[in-house]
């Protein structure tokens, strides 16, 4: 990737980040009716707020300014790390995010470990003997994995491991014992996706000339597979694992609800139901930005590791 292409890629990313922020801030204006009135009605448990209260709320929260002014103010503050205050507790949104974020990161990392621990061996076993019983079993397992709703898997694990076997706590957050079931739930779906990637990558590599050479030298099959093939197959896999972030973030929302874990997902869901818009916007923006920046980083690493890959921006 030369300098010009890199510049173009950065420019595209900035445009997308702008789009992400407009979309995030603009969302509250999709609220049916007048946002200020809807929020106050919600806060007052369904009672109709007085016209005066609505006006007051609008002025206090800066909702009386035209959209571009509100948006500009929000972005300006957001860039400086200020995402506003919750409508309910007057707590800073960034502080609320900061207390919840570690739990979500822990869940993401743990489930990634689970996923890799299942997926890499399964993918290798599959690719070493394509078309075998093992291969079919692994591929079918992967299909089941991607088809399984993770909220159901979560309850299945709770019923078996917590209620029947009494091995782990049902819900909450805390020590490692609270992390096991949520990580298994989230990790197994991801394992399915990664196992397929490992299989494809290994099949590709095992077909290469240097593997034939290694084999014809009379090297043992184990050494060929693990030392020669796996190492090269892992290059694309490692970077593509980065792209699983989308899966982690999508899944974390549901899994945190199932296990009642205080994290970014439950923060977002609670804020949505309470129409606590500053929190909704803050969390959405954070997720969007993390996602865009990670994808960008993955693209860069990928094209650096394998210069044949070109993300120059022209038709993919």
């Amino acid at each position, binding site marked *: 990737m030369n300098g010009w292409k890199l510049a173009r890629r950065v420019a595209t990313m900035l445009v997308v980040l702008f789009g*992400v922020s407009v979309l995030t801030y603009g969302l509250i204006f999709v609220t049916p009716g007048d946002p200020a009135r809807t929020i106050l009605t919600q806060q007052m448990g369904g009672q109709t707020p007085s016209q005066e209260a609505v006006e007051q709320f609008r002025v206090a929260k800066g909702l009386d300014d035209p959209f571009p002014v509100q948006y500009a103010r929000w972005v300006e503050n957001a860039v400086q790390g200020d995402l506003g205050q919750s409508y309910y507790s007057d707590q800073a949104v960034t502080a609320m995010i900061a207390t919840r974020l570690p739990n979500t990161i822990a869940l993401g990392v743990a489930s990634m470990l689970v996923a890799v621990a299942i997926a890499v061996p399964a993918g290798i076993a599959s690719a070493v003997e394509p078309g075998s019983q093992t291969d079919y079993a692994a591929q079918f397992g992967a*299909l089941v994995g991607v088809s399984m709703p993770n909220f159901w898997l979560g309850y*299945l694990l709770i019923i078996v491991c917590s209620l029947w076997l009494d091995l782990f706590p049902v819900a909450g957050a805390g020590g490692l014992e609270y992390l096991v079931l949520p990580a298994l739930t989230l990790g197994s779906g991801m394992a399915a996706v990664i196992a397929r990637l490992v299989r494809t990558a290994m099949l590709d590599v095992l077909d290469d000339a240097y593997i034939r050479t290694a084999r014809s030298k009379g090297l043992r099959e184990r050494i060929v597979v693990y030392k020669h093939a796996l190492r090269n197959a892992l290059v694309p896999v490692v970077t593509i694992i980065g792209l699983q972030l989308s*899966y982690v973030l999508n899944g974390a*929302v549901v899994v945190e609800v199932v296990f009642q874990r205080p994290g970014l997902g439950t923060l977002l*869901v609670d804020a*949505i*139901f309470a129409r606590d818009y500053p929190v909704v916007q803050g969390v959405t923006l954070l997720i*969007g930005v993390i996602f865009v920046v990670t994808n960008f980083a993955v693209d860069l690493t990928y094209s650096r590791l394998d210069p044949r890959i070109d993300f120059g921006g022209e*038709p993919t």
Partner: protein
Amino acid sequence: MSATQSDPQQRPADSRSRLTDTIRSNRLAQVGVVVVLLLAVTAVFGPLVSPYDPVEQNLAHQLEPPSPSHPLGTDQLGRDVLTRLLYGARLSLGIAVAVTGVRLVVGTAVGLVAGYAGGWVDEALMRLVDTLLAFPGIVLALVIAGVLGPSLVNVMLALAVVGWASYARLVRSNVLALRNREFVTSARLLGRSRTHVVVRHLIPNVVAPVVVLATLDIGGVILGTAGLSFIGLGAQPPTPEWGTMLASGRTYLQQAWWLVNAPGVCIMITVLGFNLLGDSLRDMLSPTQSAQMEQL
């Protein structure tokens, strides 16, 4: 049309025979077809066969375990779980087809316009696509549905808005590849109108990849609808929607394990059926087309 005939992939008749070939030769594809057909039959006729009402409460029979008269037990309000699942199948399949249909039509239209028009139109549309794809799908759908307010229609709307972008990207890249092919240039040189070129030459050639994407997408839409309903944004009780049923069963994990597991199994089998079908359909695409699919 002579240029078209020289390339076997470009002929709809051939891709149709390839479709039947793929399904005939691939056992997983057969399983997928059978599962999907069974589901469709169940969704249409199941509710007609069941002797119970899906929403009427029968408090004398609360939380009964599976038995001959209630094969999957009853729920906390004494309703027959199997009956509710049958009605739920109608709802899930109907929603999935509707949402996927909207995604497909909107995405294809945008992709055709962007790819064929090029220039700033293309640039603007593609940045919109990038922005939508810049969010994890369920998170964005969750926020849109939440702001609109909890209801099944809003969830459908949110899922449709979030999901058309990958169709647009796929169609655009296909159109870009087709635009300079001989049969398209010759049609243009013959003075055919834009509409003619798009309708007769471009659309027939993007149908196959778009249909494959839609088949792969349906499973995701079913999971999304059930997931958002599970969170509480979609169907509201007493609607017999699978995700909603699962959510109301979680209070009774200890006393009535069947309440969460029955809808869970239904969702999984449905999604699995569509994924099996979509996966094997993908194999019938040309290598370039499946490579484009991988990049979505």
